[in-house]
């Protein structure tokens, strides 16, 4: 027997011949046919290789649905620019190599049956740079969407503005931003998929102006390229600097998706924003939930004497379903939208678009998690200002698309801490309360667990306030109250009783509009049943409140808030006496 040497493991080697490609990130040898099937994602390191505009269209659009928009040919060379070669020369070569006439391709297509305007950039054409023609086509795409009332989906890949067209390129940023602004005013959905790389004039204009921003996994997106940043400030940059994941953790994109997940996500997003054919799912669910609905009317809590301390303890059970649990069980579909688009993504607040019983809604809620690890990651459901700012921008989102808002409240309170104060906790809470008090779409809130103080109120200023049987709303935690007024936290049970915590009092005081029953023993004993009960209540309330027009809604909401004065119950201030 003889032994021969190991074939050398693939180190970055000269491009092997024939059907093989070497992964630009890890050097792994990839069979080209399989790479095509794998959507040009390296199975070894998950690197997403760059795609041409045509491959993107094939990836995203329903087969055979693509119709390219025609743009009269133009060969702009406003500066008669020459570097090492003449600019028209470079354009001609880019056209020959990429097979495209410019760095963006525009057309209409269907995605999961929904008609959309699709604009896709091609990095292979002069690095996807934006000159006059790209500006013209992208704003043309926005106008086409406006004209036809269609959603606009853009896929970005660009190094930035095109140097060869000088200041004319720079001004394209204003041109396309203006077009996207008009789209926003018209309440039309725009989704931008940020792919590797998206920089400069494109990332600082239309690429980040869409209603929903989705980063492709590993894509580098930023304003100034990492080399420029490093050279200028001479700083060590984090490994994931400017990746899609980095952007998401800084609250700047709604989601990060792998390439294979992009199309399914777009299909769901479009459906959740009312684009495309009404799914049979919507109507079917609607009728069959309604059927058994009316049998089960709102149970006015029979046991009005549930001990407030029991309520407090049940509301805090770690197994009690959280907002995400309800989103996966009581709702039909849910796409989470992350981040405040400014600073961070607060895991203590989750939100996004969802559907329930055939109705499309925006959902917001506190998220506590269950395990210790989750609870620490979610900061025990105590939001920072960025959490409330995420809520704010999702409230805006709901208003622009006319979607009712559902909030699920379960928090011990807003996070008390210096960072939260530095970033303006009070301001953020106040703005969230104000915004929801004047929102031109219906708001239905459910206190599902702890409703701790202002941190809870920021998400429960609403047209309808439901309280689950073992949930409460309080001005301060019973322990806090006991510590201040009884001078010992041990008196928490007494304080809870004195503050009359619990659904029954909220209902009788007119603060809560209805009580959502729970399975015997509390929601945690049978989470699925609890979700079913919550679903029924939500569908009923939404059906009711969605009948009202915006003016009536605002008017009744204002009157409802003014009426809550406590004169039909004992005022909270007398608790300590």
């Amino acid at each position: 027997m003889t032994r021969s040497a190991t074939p050398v493991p693939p180190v970055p080697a000269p491009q092997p011949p024939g059907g093989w490609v070497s992964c630009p990130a890890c050097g792994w040898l990839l069979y080209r046919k399989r790479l095509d099937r794998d959507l040009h994602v390296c199975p070894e390191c998950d690197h997403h290789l760059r795609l041409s505009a045509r491959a993107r269209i094939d990836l995203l659009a329903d087969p055979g649905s693509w119709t390219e928009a025609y743009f009269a040919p133009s060969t702009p060379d406003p500066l008669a620019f020459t570097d090492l070669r003449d600019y028209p020369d470079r354009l001609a070569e880019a056209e020959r190599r990429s097979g495209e006439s410019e760095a963006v391709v525009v057309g209409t297509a269907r995605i999961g049956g929904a008609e959309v305007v699709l604009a896709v950039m091609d990095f292979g054409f002069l690095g996807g740079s934006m000159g006059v023609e790209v500006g013209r086509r992208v704003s043309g795409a926005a106008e086409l969407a406006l004209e036809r009332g269609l959603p606009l989906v853009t896929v970005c890949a660009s190094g930035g503005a095109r140097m060869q067209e000088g200041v004319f390129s720079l001004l394209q940023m204003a041109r396309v931003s203006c077009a996207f602004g008009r789209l926003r005013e018209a309440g039309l959905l725009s989704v931008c998929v940020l792919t590797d790389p998206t920089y400069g004039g494109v990332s600082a204009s239309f690429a980040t102006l869409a209603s929903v921003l989705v980063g492709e996994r590993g894509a580098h997106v930023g304003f100034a390229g990492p080399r420029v940043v490093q050279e200028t400030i001479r700083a060590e940059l984090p490994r994931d600097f400017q990746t899609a994941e980095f952007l998401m953790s800084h609250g700047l994109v709604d989601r990060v998706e792998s390439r294979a997940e992009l199309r399914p996500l777009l299909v769901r997003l479009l459906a959740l924003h009312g684009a495309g054919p009404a799914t049979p799912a919507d109507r079917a669910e609607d009728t069959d939930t309604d059927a058994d609905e009316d049998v089960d009317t709102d149970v006015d809590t029979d046991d009005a004497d549930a001990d407030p301390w029991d309520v407090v303890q049940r509301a805090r059970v770690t197994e009690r379903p959280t907002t995400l649990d309800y989103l996966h069980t009581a709702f039909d579909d849910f796409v989470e939208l992350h981040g405040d688009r400014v600073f961070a993504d607060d895991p203590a607040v989750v939100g996004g678009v969802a559907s329930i019983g055939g109705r499309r809604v925006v959902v917001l809620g506190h998220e506590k998690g269950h395990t210790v690890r989750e609870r620490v990651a979610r900061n025990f459901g105590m939001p920072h200002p960025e959490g409330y700012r995420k809520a704010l921008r999702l409230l805006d989102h709901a208003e622009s698309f006319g979607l009712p808002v559902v909030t699920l409240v379960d928090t011990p309170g807003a996070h008390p801490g210096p960072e939260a104060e530095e970033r303006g906790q009070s301001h953020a809470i106040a703005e969230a309360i104000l915004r929801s008090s004047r929102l031109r779409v219906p708001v239905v809130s459910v206190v599902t667990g702890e409703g701790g103080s202002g941190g809870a109120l920021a998400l429960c200023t609403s047209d309808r306030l439901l309280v689950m049987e073992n949930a409460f709303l309080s001005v301060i935690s019973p322990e806090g109250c006991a510590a201040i007024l009884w001078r010992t936290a041990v008196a928490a049970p007494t304080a809870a009783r004195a503050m009359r915590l619990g659904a029954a009092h909220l209902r009788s005081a007119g603060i809560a509009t209805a009580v959502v029953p729970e399975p015997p023993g509390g929601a945690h004993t049978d989470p699925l049943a609890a979700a079913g009960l919550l679903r029924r209540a939500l569908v009923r309330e939404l059906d009711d409140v969605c009948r009202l027009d915006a003016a009536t809604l605002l008017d009744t909401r204002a009157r409802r808030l003014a009426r809550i004065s406590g004169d039909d119950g004992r005022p909270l201030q007398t608790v300590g006496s």
Partner: protein
Amino acid sequence: MIDRLLIANRGEIAVRIARACRELGIEVVAVHSTSDRNSAVVAMADEAVHIGPPAPRRSYLHVPNIVEAALRAGADAVHPGYGFLSEDPDFAEICAAEGLTFVGPPPAVMQQMGNKATARRLMAEAGLPLLPGVVEPVRTAEEGRAIADEIGYPVIVKAAAGGGGRGMTVVRAPEDFDEAFVTTRAVARAVFRDPTVYVERFLSGARHVEVQILCDAHGNGVSLGERDCSLQRRHQKLLEEGPAGHLTPEQRTELGRLAVHGALSVGYTGAGTMEFLVDGSGAAFFMEMNARIQVEHPVTELLTGIDLVREQILVAAGRRLAFRQEDVVPRGAAIECRINAEDPTRGFAPAPGRLEVLQVPDGPWTRFDTGYRQGDTVSPDYDSLLGKLVVWAPDRDQAIRRMDRALAEMRVEGPGVHTTIALHRALLRDPDVVADRHDVQFLDRCLPAVLARAASLDDAAPGLPAARGGLQLVPTPAADPRPDRSTEGEIPCPPRPSLSTT
């Protein structure tokens, strides 16, 4: 003709293929990962090539290294075995492009059979009965009810992400459908975070029956009888046997005919298996096709006397099948037990380690296929199959007794090593299994009881019965004046008389 064949696999199947090659006079090139550098097949091969680190995707699944190994070692054919690259159409295609004969079906056929939906469609076109149901996810209760009405009750609502009995609900009447659908979807969403569900006809008391076929490249095909693999846990087969005694001879012939017809209709070549689900009345429904040699192929070999791996290689070399359907006469009964290095009491968690003791059973019609020798280490990087114990006997009862005897003879010991031996002995004592009336859900349903029986067997008889000490008719060896080698260290040697003459 094939002169030098590279085995792109490891473990028992690599040894099995190497043996067939030896008998055919074909030179063997083995490939191995770092952790398999001293394995049995490496020792048997004419040449062995190290193709990468232990992780399969960097060695046994890494096509460039394997193809490079074949080319450098001068192989003209590649046998993929089972698992790893055996059903990878790209690999077959690359081998062909590099001028290597791939022992298996043509890549295009492999591609078609590898896609469940395509395979079902092609087999339906060929006239094979399919289990009524849909391959597409069902989105609403309404849609599901329509499908259920069409395929007939009872139906099963299955979570796509489910398995092992979780996330499935059997619906027996239309009025229960909606609730079952909603609950299953809610459970799927809550437990698996994926609400996708399918609706399929539910077969109660179904058996897993698969037909072994062999086709050459000249349009000839034969069926080599069937195997019953109903004893499986979460779709992992544990014990296979043949023939399927619950079928009548006519049903078996018909199943074989369908299988060959289906395979030939898509241009299949080589050895393959058509899997069917057979209900209580003997009605069979095509499930899928395995385009490779299977783990349980020895069952068929013992029943028919045909060396499947040899035939597979000959067919790949372009030979015509040397026998016709009427030449294939399955005789008697055969059983195979998969001896896995797993701990059944801990959810079948892999329990690999060094095999300090590996005593393999022997005796009449008892075969043990393994890639391990005493002293080898079962690596945690690969599947936990230690070996396959296969017995043949003239009838099923004798085969069960023979298997039990062989299992009792077998000894596998090592730190941390557990096996499925006791579990098999317990299975073969189960009244339902003995009476051949178990179904595919049997193990998922009755595993706790079987495990309890296995535990009591373990307590009672760790090895062979030795209740009384052996009867001694001659003086015990201790009195033997000649020290034997094993006691040499303990008993001081009597001073030897000097043999030197000086």
